[in-house]
């Protein structure tokens, strides 16, 4: 009895979380008449078609959107890690700035987008950096850096300082300690942070929407054009959406254990 109730609860929860995602893929194989069909009996029984997929690539140049997003995500993540790793180590080990700088870093995520967007829009326009990949990369770096620093701060705090003191008494220099002691211990945490940065960059919409039009258009902006159009092509939109979320689904499936660990910001040892 208790077991059945538990099973039903789990089933219900799963259904609520998975159904919309399942519906994206189902819709992507529907033709126009089936999508606008109001006959409920045809919700699941329809004439399957794959016409939406080639349409997405032909009509909206989806491939270049994917490539743009990949370039911007990877390059911004590399920059973020190069900035956040040393800073987070400094905050965690030496309490640099007494928590003030750490708080300032985190607070960048609290800024209303317009605070950064208005000046940068004017600034980018003057530099003619609007609609360029490098301009977008810098903005992505800005919005990911606070989260990455906070996450890495938690992971660095898990490394006991005694390890470093011991290494110092053994005559290791700073660089040697970083390379031999700290780096091997922070590797898993750094990997989790990298995955988070990549996913956030991949999913980002607002900055790319304001700062890119055609040349540097990312997936989210490309997809939003379907919704901006007068005649919304739901089938093509679902096909594009299905492809755009596939990498994140695969990543979350393969790395679920690490992602869950990252969510707790090192506040829980897992």
């Amino acid at each position: 009895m208790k077991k059945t109730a538990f099973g039903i609860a789990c089933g219900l929860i799963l259904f609520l979380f998975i159904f919309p995602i399942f519906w994206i893929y189902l819709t992507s194989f529907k033709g126009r008449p089936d999508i606008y069909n109001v006959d409920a009996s045809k919700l699941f029984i329809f004439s399957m078609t794959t016409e939406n997929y080639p349409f997405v690539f032909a009509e909206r140049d989806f491939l270049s959107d994917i490539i743009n997003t990949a370039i911007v995500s990877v390059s911004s993540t590399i920059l973020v890690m190069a900035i956040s790793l040393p800073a987070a180590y400094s905050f965690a080990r030496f309490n640099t700035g007494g928590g003030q700088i750490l708080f300032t870093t985190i607070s960048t995520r609290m800024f209303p987008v317009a605070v950064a967007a208005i000046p940068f829009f004017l600034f980018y326009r003057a530099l003619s950096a609007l609609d360029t990949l490098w301009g977008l990369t810098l903005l992505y770096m800005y919005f990911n850096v606070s989260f990455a620093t906070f996450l890495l701060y938690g992971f660095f705090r898990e490394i006991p300082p005694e390890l470093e003191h011991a290494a110092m008494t053994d005559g290791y220099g700073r660089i040697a300690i970083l390379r031999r002691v700290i780096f091997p211990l922070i590797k898993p945490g750094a990997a989790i942070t990298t995955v988070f940065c990549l996913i956030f960059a991949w999913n980002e919409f607002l900055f790319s929407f304001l700062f890119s039009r055609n040349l540097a258009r990312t997936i989210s902006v490309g997809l939003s054009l379907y919704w901006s159009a007068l005649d919304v092509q739901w089938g093509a939109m679902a096909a594009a959406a299905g492809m755009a979320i596939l990498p994140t689904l695969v990543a979350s499936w393969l790395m679920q254990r690490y992602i869950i660990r990252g969510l707790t910001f090192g506040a829980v040892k897992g």
Partner: protein
Amino acid sequence: MSKGAEVTAEALPLEFEGKRSFWDVLADEKYFKWILTIPLIVVLLVFMLYPLFYCVYYSVQQYDMVRPAHFIGLDNFRAVLQNADFWHGLRRTAYILVMSICVELLLGMGIALLFNREFRGQNIIRGLCLFPLLISPMIMSMMWNFILQYDFGVVNMVLNVIGLSKVNFWSPKLAIYTITFISIWQWTPFSIFVLLSGLRGLPKDAFEAARVDGAPAWLTFRRLTLPMLSPLIVIIIMLRTMWLIRLFDPLYATTRGGMGTETLDWMVYRISFVFFDIGAGSALAIISLFLTLIVCALMFRVLMKSLGVNQ
């Protein structure tokens, strides 16, 4: 952390005493810890302080990106504060905030307690529950928009079949709840997994003692589980507050601020990037930033206290 510095001094070979090379000065803890933060501080200066100054500067100007800016004092602020839209937006933002966080925490706690046991297929079920969290909010909101359409959305069709009347989820009355629902759907897994890892990390012996003493389950939950999970709850509230105040994607993908769903941040966007009234937009952005900072600074203090970091 002066202990580390002492050890360094001891560890230095004797011949270096007195004549320290440039590298030794750099490696001194006093400088070393700041050198590590230089890239971050540069980023903060360029991407945070510079825009902030710019924003403050334009908030006292009249500027529409065409004609040259001219100084008008605090008129922008006065206009914003007298605008009824601002107060509506503020109330809606607070409303969405409280509603989402309460529901997410309650659901998250419930489901975390449910999942906090060994059962068959647990990894698969947990893995599937993680999906909503990592999908692009923009894309997912567009798909929810489709699923909840009045005429041909699947939810309304199913409602029709089981004999209930259709619901217009995008009407002025309901749209704000629908948008809150999308946000809750996407972010409940966050609460679930944070609280679940918290539950798994709880010390067993305290609960064993409570069980032996015959304490009822709800008392154990209130007196033991909740206090031990409180740092995590604070983390959830703080992060969700930050993210919810800046809620944009579900609005863009659905009502575009219409149907009585305009939040504070959407209003900033509308004034600055649709009307190109940079002055008023900046003033509004400053007000919004100020409100957010107050809320988050308080929570950050609570968080650091519960994590045991002395400031």
